């Protein structure tokens, strides 16, 4: 059976080049980079090289990057550092559409007594800039707003947002897990203080991430212990995975143009094809400012989990913002924040492509998808 993987915002395949780069570090090159012998020396060099590759992708200094175990750890560390280094400030600004790795951290600090501002979004998922400007106060310790949304793909105006925070002397963090490797990010011209990224979204394996901390920004470490990562993240370096992330960063740069153009074209072909062949379908998100690989479509009067399971039978992998897929009883917080009507929110499907998606894949999905929706609509008691 044909297999089409369109869930690349959840995780990506490990690139063959990445795997090949990593393998020696599971073999002979097992040294600890901190060791004072050649076993350590060999791998310390590889860690440095990976850091340089990642720095090149983001246009920052290698020393500004801290390797972590995940995007989630990077987010947690950013909050910890920002709040611990400015104990007198008690206010945090974020948005209602963040990933749980930020939202649940915000809720934790809220329970600890911090004041939170959760910024609203409009029906397209765009931030309310006036509300944002008003939310920044002398008591604000941190602004944390995602670079791009994982569910609908919206890209937020991080340039403007971070400049406004900078003017007021407020630290700015962005969860860029979905943006890195998909759109160009140039930290020379972008005044963000901290940025989180994750390896497994850019064809490196799961279990590796990084946090960028701008030179000059005070940093308080979240993990204590050894002096690794210039004392900013204790714990022996995960050498093979760091090497993998470095290779993934190189590939991202090489493929950036292809991603931006070819993937976006395939995505558009898929999206417009589905909208043409399936009635009562609508796109969620800001199509003018979207990741090139993401399409979020709602199908009226059908339920997302049922769609996913029928697609899975056809070898098509996607994801849904429906309540039933998560075990929660409400549709996605992102779609709710956008005010997507219930009869559409429960039937939302996210299709996220990658550099490995082919035109054949898109054709296959376009051929099979309408039948799935028809089957479920035939069962549904809601016909209009």
């Amino acid at each position, binding site marked *: 059976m044909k297999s089409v993987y369109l869930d690349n915002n959840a995780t990506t395949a490990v690139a063959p080049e990445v795997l090949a780069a990593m393998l020696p570090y599971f073999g002979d090159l097992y040294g600890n980079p901190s060791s004072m012998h050649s076993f350590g020396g060999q791998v310390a060099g590889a860690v440095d090289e990976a850091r340089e590759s990642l720095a090149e992708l983001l246009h920052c200094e290698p020393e500004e990057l801290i390797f972590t175990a995940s995007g989630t750890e990077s987010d947690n560390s950013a909050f910890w550092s920002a709040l611990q280094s400015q104990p007198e400030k008690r206010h945090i600004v974020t948005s209602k559409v963040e990933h749980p790795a930020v939202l649940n951290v915000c809720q934790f600090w809220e329970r600890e007594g911090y004041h939170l501002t959760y910024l609203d979004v409009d029906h397209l998922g765009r931030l309310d800039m006036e509300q944002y400007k008003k939310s920044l106060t002398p008591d604000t310790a941190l602004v944390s707003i995602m670079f791009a949304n994982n569910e609908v793909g919206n890209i937020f105006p991080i340039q403007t947002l971070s400049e406004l925070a900078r003017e007021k002397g407020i630290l700015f963090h962005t969860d860029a897990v979905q943006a890195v490797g998909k759109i160009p990010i140039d930290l020379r011209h972008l005044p963000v203080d901290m940025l989180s990224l994750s390896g497994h979204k850019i064809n490196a394996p799961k279990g590796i991430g990084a946090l960028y901390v701008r030179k000059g920004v005070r940093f308080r470490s979240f993990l204590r212990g050894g002096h690794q990562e210039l004392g900013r993240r204790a714990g022996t370096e995960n050498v093979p995975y760091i090497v993998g992330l470095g290779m993934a960063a190189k590939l991202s740069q090489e493929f950036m143009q292809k991603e931006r153009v070819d993937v976006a074209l395939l995505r558009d072909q898929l999206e417009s094809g589905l909208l043409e062949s399936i009635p009562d379908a609508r796109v969620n998100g800001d199509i003018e400012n979207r990741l090139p690989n993401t399409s979020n479509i709602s199908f009226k009067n*059908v339920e997302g989990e*049922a769609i996913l399971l029928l697609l899975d039978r056809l070898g098509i992998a996607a994801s849904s913002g429906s309540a039933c897929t998560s075990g929660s009883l409400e549709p996605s917080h992102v779609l709710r924040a956008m005010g997507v009507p219930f009869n559409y929110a429960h039937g939302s499907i996210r299709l996220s492509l990658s550099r490995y998606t082919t035109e054949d894949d898109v054709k296959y999905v376009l051929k099979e998808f309408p039948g799935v929706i028809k089957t479920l609509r035939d069962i549904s008691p809601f016909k209009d």
Partner: protein
Amino acid sequence: MWNYTQTVNDHFLRPHNVGPLKDANAIGEVGSLSCGDALKLYLKISDDGVIEKATFETFGCASAIASSSVLTDMVVGMKVDDALKLTNKDITNALGGLPKQKMHCSVMGQEALEAAIRNWKGEPATSHAHEEGKLVCKCFGVTDAQIIQAIRENNLKTVEEVTDYTKAGGACGQCLNEIAEILAHELKQESLKEIQPKKRMTNVQRMQKALKVIDEEIRPKLVADGGDIELVDVDGKRVLVSLRGRCSQCKSSEVTLRDLVEKTLREHVEPDIIVEEA
């Protein structure tokens, strides 16, 4: 990904009895678009009260579709009165089980069946539990009567289980405290049923039950007023207790002994208990 049984998958992928039933004389509708699942059940019931045909239309996840499909198989050939005795557990069992977060799908099936039969009998379409209860969960429109029914039929012990079975409390969460109260009340009823006196009670049984009632029923009330109580001995029907804390100096301790301690023990242990202060 959910771990559905083969039966759930079979009914989801190839649902039985789909679509409106032209000669239906009973229709039950539950759920709504906003809730994320809805079921419309069509029945053809004979004049002597036997369900001859059943079909459905469902909006919802795989387990909602499978629950509906298996339900239509189950009820055909059943007498209406027997069908009313079906519980959500019977639906779950017929499917070989459901993930616990999906139990509400089987509850929806049972409710639709009840609604359809009410419709046939010419009673108001809303289910019994819906009609009589007080609305607890505003997000999903769940009443206390529905919650109590789910607790009793499925022997639920936690608030999370109540949410899994009824959806109540699964959205904004404002009613979670109220659900906890209903649950606590139900569990208390349950535990009291257990300790209803049997015909003959040994001294040891009597002592254990007295101890339990003192711990669960009496002490919390005294503690709330700064007092406490200790069971000293049980001698036949005589229960010796000692009042502690503020109760020991209280002028009305005699009243406490009669009106609270003795009365409660008589109610829950044996009707002829005599309480004395040690």
